[in-house]
């Protein structure tokens, strides 16, 4: 049976769409600096705070508020839903 991806894996998968090769380093920094734990240890409870920090960080990287909204919305869908529902999971707009 296929192993379920962890919450960390899901966060990485979503972030990869926006930050590509720097994804793991970016998430690692946000989790370690703001949540003071190892990235792989993040729980759903941590995700609320993490999304806020990510929103602040990504707003510094792009002026395109649509990208920031879309990214954080994708992450928000992970809260309370350990297995993202493909029906409600908004697809990133093509670029």
């Amino acid at each position, binding site marked *: 049976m296929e192993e379920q991806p962890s919450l960390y894996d899901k966060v990485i998968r979503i972030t990869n769409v926006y930050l590509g090769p720097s*994804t793991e380093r970016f998430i690692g920094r946000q989790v370690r600096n703001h949540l003071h734990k190892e990235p792989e240890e993040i729980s759903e409870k941590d995700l609320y705070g993490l999304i806020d920090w990510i929103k602040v960080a990504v707003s510094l990287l*792009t002026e395109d508020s649509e990208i920031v909204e879309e990214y954080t919305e994708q992450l928000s869908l992970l809260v309370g839903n350990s297995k993202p529902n493909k029906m409600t999971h908004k697809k990133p707009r093509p670029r």
Partner: protein
Amino acid sequence: MLRRPTTLIWYGLLITVTVTLGLILPSAPGTLQTLNITSNSYRLSIASLILPYALILFLAFYAYNRLQAYAKQLHRTKEGHGFKNIANGTQVLAWGLALTTILTIILDAINTSHPGFTAARVIITNYAILLVPLIGFTYVGRGTRSLNDLAKVRISLLSTRIVVLLFLIIGVFFTHMIINNSHYHQDPYHLSLYWLIMTFIIPYLYAWFIGILSANEIRLYIQAIKGIIYRKALAQLSFGITIVIIGSIVMQFINNQLATENNISLGSAFLAIYIIVVIEALGYGLIAYGARQLKRIEEV
């Protein structure tokens, strides 16, 4: 702006030396006749070129400084090696720009008091200028190849054909121009045809081929990776590198054309210089901006 103080110090030192030498030392024999100007007009022309030259050199130093800072941040990552090589290549191009200018000014001055030095001056200057893209593009090429290996991308058949066609067009025109110059003018390169082909034309073509290939490889890397925000920053860096490579090729074409002209108007000379300045400044500016954006992604 340049956060590593040593780069700023080197930039200040090089620009001071270049400006001082340019204003103090005499021009190369024949320059005043070629441009149809007096010695005072020549000094005024040099003075008016100081600002654009200082700007382009600043942007070149700033670009390699930002790239090195970014590469340093990535030194333990998979991409670190590739970006380090690209940064080194950009550093060679920036330093080469400054050092070849200083060397040209010094050799021109020596030539004024030693007329028999003309051949040596021309040969040394030409080879020094050739070494810059040869070493610089080799480093950049190593970096872009390393990134392509990471992304497991290889040049497509269509891209290969475009690169080869572009290279052939540039190569054939350049070879034609150099051989034509050598044949119809008074031995402007001071080299026999065999030496000219083997040690001047072929190395230039090799450097440009590596340059064109690198520009294509970094484009392939962008296409292969994910990351809307990351790709946008990398695209600016890539576009900058491509423009610097194109600028270097255009500069050599213009330099070699001007080298054989016996009668150039000051306006034409200025136009040629400003075309080069605008292209190079734009390229280095984009590299610096892209590298800054990429570094920021690693900081927030």
